[in-house]
């Protein structure tokens, strides 16, 4: 009996374990989707097109980095205000630089400061007043949407500086635009931060057991506030890049990133419960989502069909990832 139990024990084969890694799942799905896209619409998987998809994925991936951190930090961490921050940042950046390369640096600094400030308010609401993040950031989203209207009213809207547009859309190094390199750099930085720094370990600690982290001297509140601030900063960077991508700023540009950034994180294998996961997967998750949307755009079907396929595919893909704990072991 004992022997049989051990041999038929549920220890899965190493191969299967490898295949169940969120990152591996995402990469396999990416390749599969690219092949599918190429079959449905020839030219979809061309080098140029993949490059352009990468740019779009980078925009999503950068905001998802902040979302990822907030979610990793646990306590139902989530940031619904990123869409508002992106829009605000795109507007601020456009106005500050207004087509001048010389103003890129002040514009970037201004946007990051604004993003950090909004993150600070979110973080303080969540930690000091203990408002659930979903509620706090949802409320903040409403405030930012109102703020956008006020800010846009009576100020001249601006252009992206040519340097910024080149950075986002034109090849910079080894044929890849600067934004891809920025994304890669953020990816490396995040990986380093999460695995090799005390700050990273503390993120996992508060995400996995806040009370234990507190008892071990982790400054839980400051940590959590800093995560929301980072989320604001990453959203601000996406806003700036989005300005470079589209050339000029316009209202509500960030709206579509609110839930997309969360889905990218989930597709990357970070559950919304926090304390588990990482950013490498999220990068793959962002790419996966962008490719899926790209395929649906190129296929000639009714919008109703597109949405049904999109919704159903999202659900299907979620099944590949870590699902909630079964009640019964």
């Amino acid at each position, binding site marked *: *009996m*004992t022997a*049989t*139990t*051990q041999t*038929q*024990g*549920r*220890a899965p084969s190493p191969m299967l374990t490898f295949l169940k890694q969120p990152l591996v799942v995402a990469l396999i799905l990416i390749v599969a989707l690219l092949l599918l896209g190429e079959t449905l619409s020839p030219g979809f998987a061309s080098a140029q097109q993949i490059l352009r998809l990468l740019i779009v994925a980078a925009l999503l991936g950068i905001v998802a980095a902040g979302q990822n951190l907030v979610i990793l930090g646990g306590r139902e961490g989530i940031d619904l205000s990123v869409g508002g921050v992106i829009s605000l940042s795109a507007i601020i950046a456009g106005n500050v630089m207004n087509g001048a390369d010389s103003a890129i640096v002040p514009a970037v600094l201004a946007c990051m400061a604004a993003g950090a400030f909004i993150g600070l308010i979110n973080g303080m609401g969540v930690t000091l007043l203990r408002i659930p993040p979903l509620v706090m950031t949802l409320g903040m989203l409403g405030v930012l949407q109102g703020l956008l209207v006020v800010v846009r009213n009576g100020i001249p809207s601006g252009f992206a500086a040519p340097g910024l547009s080149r950075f986002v859309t034109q090849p910079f190094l080894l044929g890849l635009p600067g934004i891809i390199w920025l994304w890669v750099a953020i990816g490396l930085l995040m990986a380093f931060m999460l*695995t*090799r*720094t*005390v*700050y*990273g*370990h*503390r993120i*996992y*600690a508060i995400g*996995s*057991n806040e*009370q*234990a*982290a*507190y*008892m*071990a*001297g*982790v*400054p839980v509140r400051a940590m959590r506030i800093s995560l929301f601030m980072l989320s604001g900063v990453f959203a601000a960077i996406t806003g700036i890049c989005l300005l470079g991508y589209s050339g000029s700023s316009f209202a509500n540009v960030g709206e579509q990133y609110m839930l997309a950034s969360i889905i990218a994180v989930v597709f990357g294998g970070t559950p919304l419960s926090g*304390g*588990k996961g990482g950013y490498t997967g999220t990068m793959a998750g962002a790419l996966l989502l962008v490719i899926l949307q790209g395929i649906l755009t190129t296929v000639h079907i009714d919008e109703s069909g597109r949405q049904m396929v999109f919704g159903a595919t999202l659900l299907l893909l979620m099944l590949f990832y870590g699902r909630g704990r079964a*009640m*019964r*072991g």
Partner: protein
Amino acid sequence: MSKLIMRGVSKAYGATLALRRGDLTVEAGEVHVLIGSNGSGKSTLCKVLAGSVRPDGGEILIDGKPVTITGPHAAREHGIGIFYQELSLAGHRTVAENICLPDMPGGIFVDRKALEIRAARYIALFETVAGEGFSAEAVVENLRADQRQLVEIMKALATEAPITIFDEPTSALDRAQVDRFFDILRGLKADGRSIIFISHRMDEIFAIGDRVTVIRDGETVGTENIADTNPAAVIRLMVGGQDELAAGASAPPAAATDRKAAVLKAENFSGKGFANVSFEVAKGEILGFGGLHGQGQSAVLRAIFGANLAAGGTITLGGSAFTPSNPRTAIRRGLAYVSGDRSRDGIIQGRPIIENATPIHYLRQKLQLARPAALAARVKPALEALHTKFGGLSHPINSLSGGNQQKIVIARWLIDRPDVLLLDDPTKGIDLSAKADLFSLIRKLAEEGMGIVLYSSEDAELLNNADRILVFNGGSVRRELTGADRTRYNLYQAAYEAA
């Protein structure tokens, strides 16, 4: 014919074999004790029976008929009720609703009347000992820990199941509550019901049990009649061949220590749950906090550490004043605190062992980078000092048994030695061998000059290990026991004195 027979039950979690061969036979009308060290598999065996864990193999017979238990609901239908060690209460619901939760009276609509009548029946059983604020309408979240445990007991009783499992039901109860509970159990026994009773307290086991089944390393190693055995024999069965791991095997307390070099001093220290507590801990001394559970011992320790708010009084650390504000500042000042509730206060679930062992090191060394090689060199000796068993530093902490998890939590404090170690019932729910390892280490640390405060809910641990014992009652110190005064009798007397 036996009421319940479990044969060859096994269960693996991933690569960890939690239960290898669980056998258990329970008769009608008996209290059957299940005992084993932590991680021996006894809780898993109970969970299989209660339907919350799916077994990998083995068979279960109830009244001689083989049954398959597909879930807690099915277990209930097979006549199995359970008291959960970690409680299974709905915090925002009332006591009455919780008692009836598994089987709400009524159809689509709840029959409030029937619910109240049924709940009242079980509440009445404990009426005299439940304490202030306990009523059918009280919201469970507002109750004290012992009262919540009583609700869980009532909930288990309300299932009226022919077989009822009690998994450490008495850990938070006071003496009077335990006595009442045992009376009820005897009543059930007389009605022919079968009780499976799990406890770490030898005195309780011998007070209530009829037979005892011992589980070791996931295997049932024997069943004895309580009347035919004694504690020492049971312990021998539990630990198997490893004699050196017997309970309370630490050295007898050291003699007088240098009282002049006080490392920690509290004067008129007050806060939530305690008032006017004054004491001194000298370098090299182990100061014991004793008394009944929940008399302020833990609250004092947490307040010194800054985890709970203090209201008044002064704390002096190493000769200079210290105002506790949060654990962070306490750690910086050389305080260490180990909680018995490791899943709440200690372990960082799902994370590698190394990350669980290093947070204090990060803080005290003001580290920003986490270099694995450098950290491993610090962590390994600390883990070895506690005889910690682990696969690799990068394995998740959840892969270890409870005792070894607690050792990791303790080890995190030993990489950079604190001046004062506050132990808040550190052995709660860990097995005997881990306890022995822990106490021998504590004595060694004291000999090396650390000041140690030990609160334990197990009197034997205190008596065996503390140099002095402060007996708490009603939130303040009732008596100090030193030298030859440290007897069980004195301890009980001070503890049960009317507060």
